[in-house]
């Protein structure tokens, strides 16, 4: 329809019309592309925010702020992978929030981290009996609690790997560290998790 308008318009007007309609169209097009690209990762973003912020209300705020920032910077987004790009922004939002609060991590929702083994000794050596290889079975909430109890950098690494399903390279980009650091953090995270795992009681029958 616009093309038809153009064909009847005096030549000098074309450029003007193009920039006017072009701006509006470009904005709408950008918004649409952003929605299509970013919203499928909302669950991933919320999951990471839950583990980083440790409570649902802060996680929601962080995710919303992340999406607004991502839209603002969408023009500079050069793909290919949207998920790590979004999660990197989200991580910055969470860090900024911690900085604002004076580096105090918020306390976990008591109700939501019901099974977090905060009091269990994390550093007990896993027994080396053959049975140790047989992993104790835990329900999902217990496993979430074990992950939530890990110290920050290790929690972040393991969540990006096991929950968000990112590659080492992508984790390195999100966390802003070399791949070698990602590998050592994951190794530490899993060693801690394994100790806690073997100690934790399966909470729900």
């Amino acid at each position: 329809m616009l093309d038809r308008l153009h064909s009847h318009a005096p030549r000098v007007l074309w450029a003007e019309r193009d920039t006017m309609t072009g701006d509006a169209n470009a904005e709408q097009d950008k918004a649409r592309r952003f929605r299509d690209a970013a919203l499928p990762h909302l669950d991933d973003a919320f999951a990471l925010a839950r583990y980083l912020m440790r409570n649902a209300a802060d996680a929601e705020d962080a995710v919303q702020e992340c999406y607004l920032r991502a839209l603002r910077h969408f023009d500079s987004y050069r793909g290919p992978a949207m998920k790590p790009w979004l999660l990197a922004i989200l991580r910055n939002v969470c860090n900024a929030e911690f900085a604002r609060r004076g580096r105090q991590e918020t306390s976990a929702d008591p109700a939501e981290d019901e099974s977090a083994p905060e009091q269990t000794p994390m550093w007990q050596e896993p027994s080396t009996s053959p049975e140790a290889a047989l992993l104790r079975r835990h329900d999902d909430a217990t496993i979430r609690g074990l992950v939530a109890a890990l110290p920050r950098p290790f929690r972040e690494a393991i969540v990006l790997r096991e929950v968000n399903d990112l590659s080492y390279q992508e984790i390195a980009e999100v966390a802003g560290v070399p791949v070698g650091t990602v590998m050592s953090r994951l190794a530490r995270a899993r060693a801690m998790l394994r100790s806690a795992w073997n100690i934790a009681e399966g909470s729900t029958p």
Partner: protein
Amino acid sequence: MNCAECEALLHALIDGELDAGHARDVEAHAAICSGCAEKLSAFRAMHAAMAAADLKQAAPAQLRRRIESALPLPAPETSAQIIAPRKFLQPSRRSFFGGFAVGTAVAGAVAASLVVTVFRTDQEQTIADEVVSAHIRSLQPGHLMDVETSDQHTVKPWFDGKVDVAPPVIDLTAEGFTLIGGRLDYIDGEPVAAVVYKRRKHVINLFVAQRLGAAHANVTGRTVQGYNVRHWSAGGLDFWAVSDLDPAELNEFIQKISAALPGGGPA
């Protein structure tokens, strides 16, 4: 390889980040070192347990709405026309695309309501059994893909001359179904193109052939050995999708594929 090197690399092995050479080295060391073998199997078991657990809670609906309302509104007609799938979706088109950010929740609901009729003929059952066997075979180490890439423009030409059809290879990464490669398989004695997708940890094999079972535009489905199987015909081709994904997500996958097919989706 010594124990220190093995420990440094065993997580990369578990995470599928090691090249074949190093992977062999780690496995070889673990075969002669009980300490490393024990670590490897324990961490593998833990990784598997975490993959199987639901560690991700879905974003609350009100968060979706908050973000949606904070984003500038798109031109609803434009986006709907571009991506609106086939006619069975049209009644819900407004809620699906107008209320864009309702997104996956609505997609899931719509997918769940997709009518799946039961297979009727014995031949269908035979083929269903065969595609499930092929799916299970493909899950064995090293059997999943002949060509491993997320680039549809690499997968599609790869099938040239191997099968007598040009299977549509559709990249649904943005929709949450990652294209991971392609494979040549044999169903009913005939070479068949298998296009492989992944949703989280779940593999979806999409088998495409010129004639494979009774042609019907409706999606038919059943469960074989715990795997969900769907069959439909479109554009002169037969499609069989197999996965351990839950039925609603598999139906969602079929809708996305159908919507992107040039010949149109199931009626």
